[in-house]
């Protein structure tokens, strides 16, 4: 029971417990695997695919793939990061991500993961979709232009807040975030700024009002150091360092 099972990732031995995903085992060992829709506090979703790793020659998402004894995982390699960059570029052109005009800039995970993978340009043709901004709630604004459909707010509102304020509607390119209220507006829903859902958005889609630039641009979480160092891996590193 107590012999620790392990897999190998980028030359390191990573211990894991039965049922743990590759990403959670790596995180516990202080190894960063890029991710957007994953947050260790919630059930894995597997939608953004940014955590894709090469496991014994197959590309799989590390947040939904259970760790298994003896797996050979490639995480931080040029081909894997190239693949991630393409996914990120698709996310950028599908929405309207205008970093110079966004309050979340510098603290945005989409931007930070793009920096980490060395993305310099969007590569693809922009969609420039027309989407709404919902400022109806007194404490929070929702800018649908920036939503990457990670469903973290959906999961937080459903599983932690017990409210089901958010949901994804439509399929494929028509998918969009909707709000559960009779007008479809946030201000008319059960949402409250103390909700878990208020603080999980990895991008600038769900934003608190009245505090936009309290932390100046240039002094934000990912402005000076990469997400691989200061992101959720930083908290995990304070625990067991687990080198094998």
């Amino acid at each position, binding site marked *: 029971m107590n012999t620790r099972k392990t897999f190998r990732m980028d030359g390191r031995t990573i211990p894991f417990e039965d049922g743990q995903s590759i990403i959670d085992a790596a995180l516990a060992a202080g190894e960063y695997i890029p991710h957007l829709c994953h947050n260790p506090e919630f059930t894995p979703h597997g939608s953004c695919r940014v955590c894709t790793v090469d496991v014994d020659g197959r590309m799989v998402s590390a947040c939904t793939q259970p760790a298994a004894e003896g797996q050979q995982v490639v995480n931080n390699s040029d081909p894997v990061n190239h693949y991630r960059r393409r996914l990120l570029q698709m996310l*950028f052109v599908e929405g*309207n*991500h*205008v*970093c*110079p*005009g*966004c309050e979340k*800039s*510098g603290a945005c995970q989409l*931007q930070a993961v*793009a*920096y980490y993978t*060395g993305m*310099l*340009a*969007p*590569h693809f*043709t*922009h969609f*420039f979709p*027309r989407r709404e901004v919902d400022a109806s709630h007194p404490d929070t604004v929702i800018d649908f232009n920036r939503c990457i459909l990670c469903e973290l707010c959906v999961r937080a509102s459903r599983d932690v807040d017990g409210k089901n304020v958010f949901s994804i509607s439509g399929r494929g390119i028509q998918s969009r975030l909707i709000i559960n209220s009779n007008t479809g507006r946030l201000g008319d829903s059960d949402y409250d700024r103390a909700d878990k859902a208020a603080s999980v958005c990895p991008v600038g889609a769900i934003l608190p009002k009245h505090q936009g630039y309290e932390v100046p*641009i240039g002094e934000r979480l990912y*402005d*000076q*150091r*990469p997400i691989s160092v200061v992101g959720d891996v930083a908290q995990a590193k304070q625990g067991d360092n687990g080198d094998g």
Partner: protein
Amino acid sequence: MADKIRIATAPLAGCFGCHMSLLDIDERLLDLIEVAEFDCSPLNDFKRVGSADIGLIEGGVANTENVETLRDFRRHCRILVAVGACAVNGGIPAMRNQFDLRDCLEESYVNGIGVENPMIPNDPEIPLLLDKVHPIHEVVKIDYFLPGCPPSADSIWTFLTELIEGRPVSFPYTQIHYD
């Protein structure tokens, strides 16, 4: 000495901030002109691009003149570089893509606060606006991208020196930002 590297620069739909950032390399400009000289650029006011090794484009493509300038640069520059957020992805000017062009013009020239003599300008000298603002890689092939609003003087310097010295271009973490 060997021929100097020729650099041309052009502002399209931008705010001139990227050109200001280029000037922000300050006294390193003296090092730059040891190895390079400027072809057409708003800095020397030469109007048409001759033939250049490096073309630096600031701004996205918002009107017919932008298209013409950009194509002209592509024809005459060996290496074409998208400098800054607007060239890279349309930037702030592309936020007008959320609206119909007519609505933008009417807001500015007909219904806007304080407008006198309301009319949409239609002098034939004025370049026609495109329906949408586009990043420049959607119009011509681009060889390098330098993001930032604007890219800092340090990142412009890193880019130019590494490119001119023929080294692979790579930046320290703090020199790449999209804002």
